[in-house]
């Protein structure tokens, strides 16, 4: 049996799956202490079921997201090696930064050597400021980590007890500013996350659950809990992935569906394209910082069931913030949920209070409660539909760098609009009608997110770069930089990438998930100097297939 838990901002949802069937569901309020919510959810699910029966637990957690949002993480001293290019002075406003001399170029060649004398200065700066956590990030360090290694080693030599993180380990892709963010946040949250992971293990042990525990990632893949401790930043932004995977499990395979997750204050939009959730072309953004965290392409619309509704003059306006529950649930102000209640599209809350909320808005301008309710629901639908149209335009604008990519671009149009979340039933049929799609409200829609967590599977990628002129290769995900022995052709480069994927799987204890390997990118560049081919560059990307462990029920289609 599998357990999936999604710890959201207001609710913690959980399911227990047995084969393709939902055995139990639970919904508890999310507490300040996430572990309490996690424990509550588990106890609710397990009633009478012995812990040994559980084969796998996957949960999504907002702990790192919250730490970052509330700036409750530990202070980090940042050492940067920016080399020639942008000045990056703006990073002084975000982090406490010390700039070092030294530069690497795009092919990993040293273009400016380190200045050893500066290291002592940097160390004194860190000591004076009282930092015990240090992030060292160099431009192009993913192509050559020598400078980062030297700086980190120097600091460790003088302060073995300090925690030092290096850019090439924390953010292996190209993008220096995002690598800085990844490294700083990894450094800042690692201890607190470790504490959290220990508490999770403890909570499992106390319930006799000895199953593997995984954490959901923003791209819909999972990581073993222990592995996630090395990369706590990878756990951010997994909520939208949970509900999207849930929809994937609850709808027929291979279809193109727009996922509309209507929550309390936001509506998340995602796309399942021919059965696969669409990935964002760039990493996730947290607060005002861009990271290298791979995520699904999700748009958030700041409107939901608990959004505050007010009247200004004759106009009814929906605000993006939440003040409390809906009025019909004892909250202070009218909300879209009250409108749905009046229209009979939901059974939540007290009908009289809902009507009272509508009257309060409409009476002074001579609008009846039903008219007000219709106006509010119309506004919500307009906002969401406008955003959906905008989102498709943006997806069509995604950059393409190869001729075939430009040619195969086509207009994306979904077949289905699938609603999940509290407000789905009230809004989704009308949204679908506006878009000319089939509305689907799958069974278990309220816990689709937890189902998504339960069916998520580990995905592993390896991006390999080999440079036969310089006889080196790089594995971005591992921060590994090695030497090539002898000749390497394209087939050899693909094999090398695959072997590193297997190595990575073995290290994470995930070999059972690697039955096949997909090649997602294979670029070969001739290096030509003076009209002679002097080498080749191979850019190879391999991964285990993305997807889910299985579908739930009939892949339900309730509304036609």
């Amino acid at each position: 049996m599998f357990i999936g838990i999604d710890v959201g901002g207001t609710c913690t949802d959980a399911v227990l799956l047995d084969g393709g069937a939902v055995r139990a569901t639970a919904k508890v309020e999310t507490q300040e202490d996430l572990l309490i919510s996690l424990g509550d959810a588990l106890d609710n699910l397990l009633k009478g079921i012995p812990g040994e029966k559980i084969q796998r637990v996957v949960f999504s957690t907002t702990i790192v997201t919250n730490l970052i949002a509330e700036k409750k993480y530990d202070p980090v001293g940042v050492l940067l090696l920016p080399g020639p290019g942008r000045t990056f002075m703006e990073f002084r406003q975000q982090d406490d930064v010390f700039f070092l001399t030294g530069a690497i170029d795009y092919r990993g060649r040293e273009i400016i050597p380190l200045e050893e004398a500066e290291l002592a200065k940097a160390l004194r700066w860190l000591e004076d400021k009282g930092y015990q956590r240090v992030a060292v990030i160099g431009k192009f360090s993913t192509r050559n980590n020598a400078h980062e290694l030297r700086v980190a080693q120097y600091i460790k030599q003088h302060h073995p007890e300090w925690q030092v993180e290096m850019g090439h380990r924390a953010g292996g892709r190209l993008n220096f500013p995002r690598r800085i963010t990844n490294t700083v946040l990894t450094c800042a949250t690692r201890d607190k996350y470790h504490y959290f992971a220990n508490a999770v293990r403890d909570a499992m042990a106390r319930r006799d659950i000895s199953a593997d525990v995984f954490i959901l990632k923003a791209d819909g893949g999972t990581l073993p809990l222990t592995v996630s401790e090395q990369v706590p930043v990878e756990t951010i932004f997994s909520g939208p992935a949970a509900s999207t995977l849930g929809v994937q499990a609850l709808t027929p395979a291979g279809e193109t569906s727009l996922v509309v997750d209507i929550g309390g204050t936001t509506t998340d939009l995602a796309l399942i394209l021919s059965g696969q959730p669409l990935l964002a072309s760039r990493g996730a953004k947290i607060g005002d910082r861009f990271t290298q965290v791979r995520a699904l392409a999700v748009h958030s619309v700041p409107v939901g069931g608990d959004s505050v509704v007010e009247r200004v003059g004759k106009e009814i306006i929906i605000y993006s913030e939440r003040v409390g529950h809906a009025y019909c649930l004892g909250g202070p102000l009218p909300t879209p949920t009250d409108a749905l209640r009046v229209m009979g599209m939901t059974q939540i809350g007290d009908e009289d209070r809902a009507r009272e909320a509508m009257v309060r808005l409409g009476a002074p301008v001579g609008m009846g409660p039903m008219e007000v309710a219709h106006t509010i629901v119309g506004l919500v639908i307009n906002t969401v539909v406008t955003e959906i149209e905008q989102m498709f335009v943006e997806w069509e604008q995604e950059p393409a760098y190869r001729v075939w990519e430009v040619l195969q671009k086509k207009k994306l149009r979904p077949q289905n609009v699938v609603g999940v979340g509290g407000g789905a039933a009230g809004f989704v049929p009308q949204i679908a009608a506006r878009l000319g799609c089939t509305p689907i409200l799958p069974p278990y829609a309220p816990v689709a997110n937890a189902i998504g967590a339960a069916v998520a599977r580990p995905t592993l990628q390896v991006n390999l770069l080999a440079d036969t002129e310089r006889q080196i290769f790089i594995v971005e995900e591992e921060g590994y930089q090695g030497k090539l022995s002898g000749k390497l052709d394209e087939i050899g480069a693909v094999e090398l990438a695959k072997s590193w994927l297997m190595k990575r799987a073995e290290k994470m204890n995930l070999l059972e998930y690697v039955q096949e390997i997909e090649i997602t990118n294979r670029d070969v560049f001739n290096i030509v100097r003076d009209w002679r081919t002097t080498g080749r560059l191979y850019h190879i990307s391999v991964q285990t297939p993305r997807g889910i462990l299985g579908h739930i029920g009939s892949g339900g289609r309730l509304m036609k």
Partner: protein
Amino acid sequence: MMKKTGIIFFPAFDWAISATHPEREERLLYTRDQMFEEGILDLPEIEEFSPRLASEHDICRVHFCVPSVSDQVLEAHRIAAGAAMHLGDKIIAKQIKNGFALVRPPGHHAMRVVHGNRGFCNINNEAVLVEYLRRTYGVKKIAIVDTDVHHGDGTQDIFYHDPDVLFISFHQDGRTIYPGTGFTYELGGPGAYASTINIPLPPGVTDAGLHYVMDHLISPILADFQPDFVVNSAGQDNHFTDPLGQMRITAQGYARLTEKLKPDLAVLEGGYAIETALPYVNLAILLALAGKDYSSVLEPEYNPDRFKENPKVTSEIHRVVGELQEIWANRHKADKFALANGAKYYQRTKPIYYDTQFIEEKQIEKVRVCAQCPGYITIDSQAYHPDGKRYHVLAITIPIQACKYCQEEGWDAYEQYKHDYRFNYVYLQDKSTDTFMMYRREERQEFRSDG
């Protein structure tokens, strides 16, 4: 809201002229690495767009592809031109403040008639953009400033008789580099005198010399011309490490040039120091367009002490600038009819060489000298193609500003030449109505396309 700099980056990682040709997949690879690593596409001042394809009609608005567009133009070319058009749309709609089409393949050596690839170019990206902007948005006066080390002979050819398109090209002196043209006396046809300005410079020009040209010649000319839209053919082969040119311009020099020129749209042209120049120059240009600090974009090979300009070079620059200043100052004294020696038609005979494919084209270009408009043009062109076939074509182009008489006479000429046994193909481009005609005489087939 702050307006952004739009960029379309199209490195065409799956297209090359040949495996070891300078115009190959690897060309923008390191530029991509540098741009991505700098995180430049995350800047709030910059927005990235994806390219679209220029249509056949967009290409026919400029070129006569022999025998037809599909024989000369691949998808990669249509994407590069389409990228420039797409950014043009965004600029006209004021969605972005300026743009950079960082694309390959390049275009500025492609002339009006296309028998094959010339100087790595098949179609002229800037010209396709210009005709599109004029047709779609009624943009009147456009300036194209070509900052590539090679003379932009293709662009010059296309707008040579057009008084509303100012073409300025500085480049290494044609006696020392491909394509061997671009001298100060090439000033445009009689009806477009001084709307072509060529600034041939001696090898060895540094940033200082280049900015002397900019400050004393290009900027004042642009200020007089008052263009509605400025396109920069942003070649980067003036760089001190370029293998094809012998100039000594740096990334800083290019960035400051961009800052002064303030182009609405920069379109990448040449530049083949793919490791030592392109990653840095492209970054510097983009930062300059976006109004960001580029002062730290310094090439690893850059050493300020080595950049003293030879006094002989400096004095030659001053001489050329002086000569052109005088021509520009006296441009209004030139009379159209006097320049054409009183003839009704102004005629040029041009041998055109296609270096990439070893094609030799013979061309006779005839322009009607008209008091009301720039006059329609007939072009008699013949060449052997690499497949051994000989093509002899006749092409007529009617300018967008055409008077009634020139338009009618152009169409009459087309009808007549259709029956002329000398020509395999007869084409007509009526820019005033956005119509394109093509007649295959042997098959007696006619094609028409309207915009």
